[in-house]
């Protein structure tokens, strides 16, 4: 099937405070998850990936690096472990963004999956090189769940940017 660009709607410009709020909420969601739930997706990676695809001028590798350091301290992982994974994730997402946005949502999710997996594998490689144990296969289940969540996530995060379908100049809002 030839992909078309007809499904994309013309969006309002993004509000910066909304981007920062979603990043903060992603961080809080990550803090909330107990350690025993290994398969829960890395929310901040997903949100970061989303904004790197949509708004790569605003959210880029600098943000990825800072958020990665915060996650390193919060998870008491090796300092720089999340940072490296997120920076690579943000770079790949922003380079591929022109291509990814051309596809319908389900196929976008297929593009996102390898990016998130790469981020997870980078972290595993760093820790295995440092002599830690294998985390178990549920560790790699997170990106798959996150990729499935890409479709609802896109609707949720683009909600403030949608124009009403029927424009009515007399409507107050």
């Amino acid at each position, binding site marked *: 099937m030839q992909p078309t660009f007809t499904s994309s709607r013309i969006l309002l410009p993004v509000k910066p405070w909304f981007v920062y709020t979603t990043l903060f909420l992603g*961080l*809080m*969601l*990550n*803090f*909330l*998850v*107990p*350690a*025993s739930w*290994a398969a829960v997706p890395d929310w901040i990676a997903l949100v970061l990936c989303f904004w790197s695809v949509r708004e790569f*001028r605003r959210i*880029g*590798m*600098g943000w*990825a*690096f800072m958020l*990665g*350091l*915060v996650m*390193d*301290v*919060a*998870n*008491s*992982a*090796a*300092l*720089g*472990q999340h*940072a*490296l994974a997120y*920076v*690579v994730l943000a*770079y790949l997402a*922003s*380079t591929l963004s022109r291509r990814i946005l051309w596809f319908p949502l389900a196929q976008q999710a297929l593009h996102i999956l390898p990016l998130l997996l790469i981020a997870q594998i980078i972290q*595993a490689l*760093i*820790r295995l090189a*440092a*002599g*830690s*144990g294998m*985390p*178990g296969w549920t*560790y790699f289940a997170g990106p798959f769940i996150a990729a499935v969540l890409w479709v609802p996530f896109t609707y949720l995060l683009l909600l403030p940017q949608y124009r009403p379908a029927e424009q009515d100049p007399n409507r107050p809002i």
Partner: protein
Amino acid sequence: MPGIDQAPPPFFKRGPAPLALLSFYVAASIALFVVDLKYHSVDLLRQAIAIVVDPLQRLAQTPAASIGALAEYARGMDQLQQENAQLRRARLDIAPSLARLLHLEAENDRLRRLLDMKEREKASGQIARILFATRDPFSRRIVADKGGQVGIVAGQPVIDGSGVVGQVTRVSLLHSEITLITDKNQIVPVQVVRNGLRSVVYGLGGGQLELRYLPANADIKEGDLLVTSGLDGIFLSGFPVARVKRVERDSAYAFARIVCEPVAAVENFTDVFILSPATQTTPLPKELTDQIERKAEKREDPGPSAPDKPIKKSKGR
């Protein structure tokens, strides 16, 4: 003409090229984790970030914690009464030995002094509450609610009601991080209670421990209790660590594979007791101190330096 070889001003300000930025950040993070994992010398940066992150993390976990507290509150009256009766019975069980403990300790001290032995160190420390387990899937660590503000330092041993839980490995202002004995990088020197055999026990992850480097014909059986031997100068001797669960003797290998289970409730998180760091160290035997002195003399005149480093290290504790 003056302006001809000047580049025109850029239409859009875009900053450095993405590839340049990527290589900069990748280099920065690689430098960070190499320094962190190898030399442990970026703790200041970690603590600075932790000052901001710790309160946020606690805030995020408040709802879950309060739901747990509510569930505790809503538990039935008779369940509490049962628990109370059980605790009372348990206290009665240990009452006879506990009542004589003080007397025995005093007697032990007296006898040790008679024999001219060093007095045993008494355990002291503080109680801390476990807040959560860290989300790092590669290690087994928990976070306790006491940190640098009450004088906890890295290296202090941690026990619970039944045995050794782990060791404090990192301290921030309000929290301290405890590496469990089941972590793959945690090693505890132990002694078998039944016959006094000494060895070290390694964490395996997954709630198990392994007693390594014991010969295949070592006298060790299933159900043997392992207690800390105190040889490391960190753990006081005599705290239960693990019980031998399975012994596999295979003549193809030089060592037996001995899997143990921790005695303490290592993977359920309740209150723990953080022991003060050991202050008294066992002095080295006289022959060894003589040897060291001789080597020190030797080193003054140019000669091959002998590997006396480990001895010095254990002395410094």
